[in-house]
């Protein structure tokens, strides 16, 4: 049976690139999305057209019942999840003194609560299989901080602590848990910066440019591969040399 990878927030951006990469690597893909059904179906169609196997899996990953339902559906259609990529995330930036409690809660819930819920759901079958890979998408914002991103940075730093704790909890069962901290990657999320700001950002990056979603996806592919069997609890920074 083909190994199954679930990628949350996979209808666009980094998540989409990860879904396509893991499909190329031979995984059957569950393309999770919250509301962009059309975009998720396009990712599924692209994978299937390339000879791969994929389904779209709708769920608000910050909702426990929705997550349970999604895992049941994936189990029925593709089989148990052996690679989980917790990628779903949002930003809702604002300087702290102007940030509402709702802005805080929304970002923490979508970015961090979702990681807890999906990891918990995935671990059941991984423990049974005594194998599994969990890859959490953090951010350099969670390591270095970023003005206007108190909520986002806290959620992404939370992911790093969560990654290390769970890595220790389940390591004895052959399950690895790692995080990736992308820097500035060309996606809808960073497009809002505008061209001028992007140029200014690029000047602070050793490689002198923003990254591509595929350059994050390739690291996910590696962490999901047999070659990464002895790596766990780590956070791999993929930022072109931004935070040196």
């Amino acid at each position, binding site marked *: 049976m083909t190994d199954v990878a679930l990628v949350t927030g996979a209808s666009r951006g980094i998540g989409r690139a990860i879904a396509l990469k893991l499909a190329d690597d031979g995984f059957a893909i569950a393309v999770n999305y919250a509301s962009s059904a059309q975009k998720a179906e396009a990712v599924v169609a692209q994978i299937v057209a390339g000879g791969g196997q994929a389904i779209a899996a709708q769920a608000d990953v910050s909702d426990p019942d929705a997550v349970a339902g999604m895992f049941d559906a994936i189990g029925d259609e593709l089989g148990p999840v052996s690679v989980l990529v917790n990628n779903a995330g949002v930003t809702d930036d604002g300087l702290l003194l102007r940030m509402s409690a709702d802005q805080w809660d929304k970002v923490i819930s979508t970015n961090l609560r979702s990681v807890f819920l999906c990891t918990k759901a995935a671990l*059941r079958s991984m*423990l*049974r299989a005594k194998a599994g890979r969990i890859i959490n998408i953090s951010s350099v914002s969670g390591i270095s901080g970023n003005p206007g991103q108190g909520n986002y940075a806290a959620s992404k730093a939370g992911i790093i602590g969560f990654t290390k704790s769970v890595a220790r909890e*389940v390591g004895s*069962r052959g399950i690895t848990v790692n995080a990736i901290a992308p820097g500035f990657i060309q996606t809808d999320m960073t497009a809002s910066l505008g061209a001028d700001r992007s140029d200014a950002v690029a000047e602070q990056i050793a490689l002198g440019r923003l990254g591509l979603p595929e350059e994050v996806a390739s690291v996910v592919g590696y962490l999901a591969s047999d070659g990464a069997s002895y790596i766990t609890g780590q956070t791999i920074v993929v930022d072109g040399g931004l935070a040196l």
Partner: protein
Amino acid sequence: MERAEIESKLNELLVEELGLDAEKITPDARFEEDLEVDSLGVVELLMALEDNFGVQIPDEEAESIGTVSQAVDLVVAKLAG
């Protein structure tokens, strides 16, 4: 389900899902001390009981499970209802 049936099903789960040595499993065997089940293994045991017997075991009741026969007792009590 009869007690004997629960007992034999549980023994099967302990071997197949927790990877325990069938020869060491006796009613009086203690999970942590005799069968070398770690804390995560106890959680796996609870999940196996819940999935296979269709019961719900809250954490406070899980603490009563020290030996194989205590696990059977709990399932018997849960199924009786």
